[in-house]
Structures are given as structure tokens and as C-alpha cells.
């Protein structure tokens, strides 16, 4: 469930960095080490957790800009005359309605409606070689599962599913200064590039898919490039951002940024035991689209259940004290367990611990009195709030 990253441990358990030979390394690995990054095993990849203070990195993204290596994300290319039809069948969204150069947040579910992964699908510009091409970006931990499911579901469609995990490095520049930084390195029309859109271009002399997407709650860009160009691009972005406070950022602050922005993380808010409706994200399921899709029947029932008799509801919790709620901690009211924390962290922006939690519908209204989190035996008072915790001023 991806929760061991929040484990309780004894200080004495801290060990010098062990051998990481079995982990996969991104094209930027040597650069991270030269920057003094603390590395962590994330879904089998050796990734930067933080370079210095994770709080400072978080605040840099909120107020200036941050640079991320996200090369662990799983890219899958779907191409061919029936690429759109295949994705409409395999995923819950209406991918056929995505215009060229646009992107869509969507999910892939099992036949029983359980979420296999949440995805971003980019419809790439059409070329002579391929009339219709989509780039599906899966979570690193689920990339193989998504690839296998897409291949299996492609039977009978005139479409090719290609594992492109090794074909791309992914670098994100996020934060209010990111448009200025990127503009100094590209002639691409960034002003015309909307949120959840992408266009091919050249950044610092490097061919890239420039996407205006992210997982931080800020304006920003994700740049898909060939791995051999990653170091060159990272260094150019670092130099371009020098004067405006751009700092390299690790996965630790990416997690607190997405938590403040109320964005779900697979293995925490999303899992195979939940449908998109259970996760409060039923809007990604498009029943009105043409044709059948995997999970339609189960999801129709899940939609009805969620509207009439929701079991548990995803809410935000803000601490009154300073102890931090962690994934798996019980949410309590009147001495009874009424829910469970799925993600929790000290929020740099709010200056207090925050959490996302699934709680019984009766206790899910913002302002519900008497709700607490059982933090290692002590019931700490928490305020129930609507998500997100943070929304940027546009």
C-alpha cells in the first residue's frame, strides 16, 4: 500500500546508506549525488527524497520555483487508427474527446470498478508516421500493471501499446516563476499553452514535449525528453532559474505539495479496493461515452451507492496541536473509530499538521465537532475541512 514510507522507527534503526545496486537509476542520478541529495527507494527507483530542507523546497515551489526529476513515472505510448477507441474501452474517461495537444486526468479500473491507477493521458500532435498517438503516464509503482492491462485490453483493436518507460526522462519545473524560467529557454508559445495541454518544442536546444501539468497545486511544466538530454536540460533550467530562486526539489516536498493541493496518491487515497466514486472522483468516469468500457457495470452500481448511501467520504483534517497524523492512524469521535488517515504531514503553508482521511459520512461535514486522530494512543483534536487545503491565487 505504499505506506511504509511513513513508518515509525527507532532512531537507532538509522543506518548508513546501504547498497542500492538493485534499484533503478534515472539519467540524472550522478547529478543528484553531486548536489548532495538524500536518496530514497521509491517503487524500485533510487530517487531524490530531498536535497536540503524539505520545508524550504516546498516553500520555494509555492513562492518561486522548484525543479524535479520525475523520470520514474511510467510512460506508455498508444498509437494506431483505433488508439482512441482502445483507450475509451480500457480507461474510464472519454479519451476520444481529448483534442490534439490536450491532456486528461483519468483512471484505469478493474472489471469490479477497483482503481488500478490514476493516469494522465496526453494526445500528441499528429505526425505522418502516426495519425493518432497518446502518451499515457502511469505511477511508477503501477506502470507494469497498467502496461499489462492495456496490452490485454488491446486485443481486437487496431492499435499498438508500447512500453516507453526507458524512452523518456521527465523533468518538472513548478511554481510561479516557472513560466518565466521556461520562456527564457524556448520559443514555444507558452502563453498559448493552457493548463492540461502539451506541445512539442525545443527547450535549451533539446527536443521536448512541453506539458502544462503538475502535482503541486502551482502553475508549472513537465518536460518529457530523451534520457540522454536530461542532464543538459536540468543544467540549463538550473542556470535560467538562478536569479529567481529556483531550487532542486525531492519527492518529500512533492508529497506535501500534492497533499496541500488535495490531490490523491495511489496507495494512499486510491487503491483496488476503492472505486473512483468511493474516492470522491466519480467525475472522471464518463458513462455517456460511446461503447462499453472495463468496469462500466460495476461503476454504475458504485455511482448509485455513492449518491444514496456513501460508506466513507474523503475529507481534510487540520490539527489543533502539533503531532502529525500518519497514513493508517484511526480517526475517532466519541471514543469510536469513524475513519482512517490516508496521508498526513506537517503542512509548511498552513504551519500545522494536515491529513486526508476517509471518514463515515455522518462525520464528514466541514466543521463536524468532536473529531480527532488517534496518534499512538492519544486522541488529538482535528478540524474537518473541505479539500483542498491550499488553492493558488490565479
Amino acid at each position, binding site marked *: 500500500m505504499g505506506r511504509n514510507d*511513513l513508518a515509525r522507527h*527507532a532512531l*537507532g534503526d538509522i543506518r*548508513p546508506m546501504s547498497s542500492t545496486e538493485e534499484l533503478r537509476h534515472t539519467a540524472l542520478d550522478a547529478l543528484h549525488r553531486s548536489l548532495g541529495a538524500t536518496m530514497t527507494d521509491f517503487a524500485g527507483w533510487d530517487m531524490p527524497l530531498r536535497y536540503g530542507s524539505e520545508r524550504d523546497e516546498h516553500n520555494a515551489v509555492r513562492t518561486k520555483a522548484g525543479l524535479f526529476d520525475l523520470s520514474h513515472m511510467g510512460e506508455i505510448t498508444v498509437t494506431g487508427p483505433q488508439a482512441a477507441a482502445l483507450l475509451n474501452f480500457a480507461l474510464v474517461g472519454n479519451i476520444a474527446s481529448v483534442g490534439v495537444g490536450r491532456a486528461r486526468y483519468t483512471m484505469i479500473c478493474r472489471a469490479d470498478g477497483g482503481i488500478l491507477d490514476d493516469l494522465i493521458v496526453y494526445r500528441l500532435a499528429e505526425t505522418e508516421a502516426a495519425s493518432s498517438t497518446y502518451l499515457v503516464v502511469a505511477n511508477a509503482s503501477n506502470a507494469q500493471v497498467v502496461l499489462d492491462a492495456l496490452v490485454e485490453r488491446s486485443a481486437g483493436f487496431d492499435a499498438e501499446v508500447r512500453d516507453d518507460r526507458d524512452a523518456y526522462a521527465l523533468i518538472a519545473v513548478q511554481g510561479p516563476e516557472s513560466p518565466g524560467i521556461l520562456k527564457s529557454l524556448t520559443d514555444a508559445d507558452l502563453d498559448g499553452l493552457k493548463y492540461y495541454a502539451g506541445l512539442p518544442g525545443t527547450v535549451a536546444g533539446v527536443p521536448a514535449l512541453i506539458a502544462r501539468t503538475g502535482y503541486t497545486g502551482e502553475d508549472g511544466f513537465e518536460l518529457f525528453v530523451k534520457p540522454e538530454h536530461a542532464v543538459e536540460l536540468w543544467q540549463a533550467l538550473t542556470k535560467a532559474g538562478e536569479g529567481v530562486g529556483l531550487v532542486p526539489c525531492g519527492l518529500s516536498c512533492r508529497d506535501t505539495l500534492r497533499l496541500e493541493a488535495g490531490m490523491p496518491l495511489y496507495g494512499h487515497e486510491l487503491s483496488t479496493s476503492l472505486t473512483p466514486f468511493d474516492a470522491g472522483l466519480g467525475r472522471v468516469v464518463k458513462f455517456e461515452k460511446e461503447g462499453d468500457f472495463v468496469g462500466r457495470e460495476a461503476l454504475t452500481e458504485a455511482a448509485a451507492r455513492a449518491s444514496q448511501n456513501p460508506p466513507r467520504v474523503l475529507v481534510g483534517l487540520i490539527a489543533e496541536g502539533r503531532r502529525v497524523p500518519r497514513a493508517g492512524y484511526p480517526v475517532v469521535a466519541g471514543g469510536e473509530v469513524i475513519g482512517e488517515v490516508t496521508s498526513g504531514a506537517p503542512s509548511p503553508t498552513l504551519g500545522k499538521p494536515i491529513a486526508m482521511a476517509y471518514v463515515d459520512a455522518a462525520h464528514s461535514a466541514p466543521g463536524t465537532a468532536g473529531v480527532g486522530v488517534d496518534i499512538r494512543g492519544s486522541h488529538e483534536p482535528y478540524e474537518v475541512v473541505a479539500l483542498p487545503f491550499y488553492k493558488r491565487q490565479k
Partner: protein
Amino acid sequence: MSNPQQLRYSKEHEWLSTAEDGVATVGITEFAANALGDVVYAQLPEVGSTVTAGDTCGELESTKSVSDLYSPVTGEVTEVNEDVTNDPSLVNSAPFEGGWLFKVRVTEEPADLLSADEYDAHTAG
């Protein structure tokens, strides 16, 4: 990083100063502070309570983890660092100085505390 020569160390990454009038200062090492990341909450033992060498006596929370704090010696807690309670980031910025955690009137000290050089070797990759 350099571990001060005048301190002694536990394998659980606490440091202990030389006792003055029987009272020694306890903190966590820079190695441990770096491994934890930004410390956001410190639960320290109460003044007047007895701590036992090798037993848990508090906890430190960082962005990603919560860690038990162990006492390197046995004795009575005479003072805790209120500055750290109010601003836990002191543990990261000055682990050997302003980020000290508590003072203890030592009654018993384990024989296996490490010198700075021995602790360096213990934490070498």
C-alpha cells in the same frame, strides 16, 4: 560532517556531554538529524522524571517519520530545551549546540558509549 571530539555517542545516535557537577547534556547527532529531515515536533521527557539508558524517553517527528528517542544514560532529567519544543528545526540547524534536547543528573552510564572516532566508524557507509 564532524562529530565533536569532546562528546560521547550512543549507537542510537544520541550524544552526551561530559558531566559538570554530575549533570550531562543529551542531544541527537547531525547524522541522525540529516537522516530524519526537518524535525517538526519534539516530545521530550519531563523535568524530574527518571530516564534509563537504552530506554525510550521521547520522540521526534519529521516530515516523513516519527522516531523514538532513547536515553544514552540513566538519571534524573533536570532541564529540557524549551527552545527546541518551540522551534524543533533547531535540531536540524544546530544539533550539537542550540538543538540539545535535555539535561540529566547521571546515576549510571553504560560502558559501551562511543568516542567520536568510534561513532564516525559506526556511521561510515
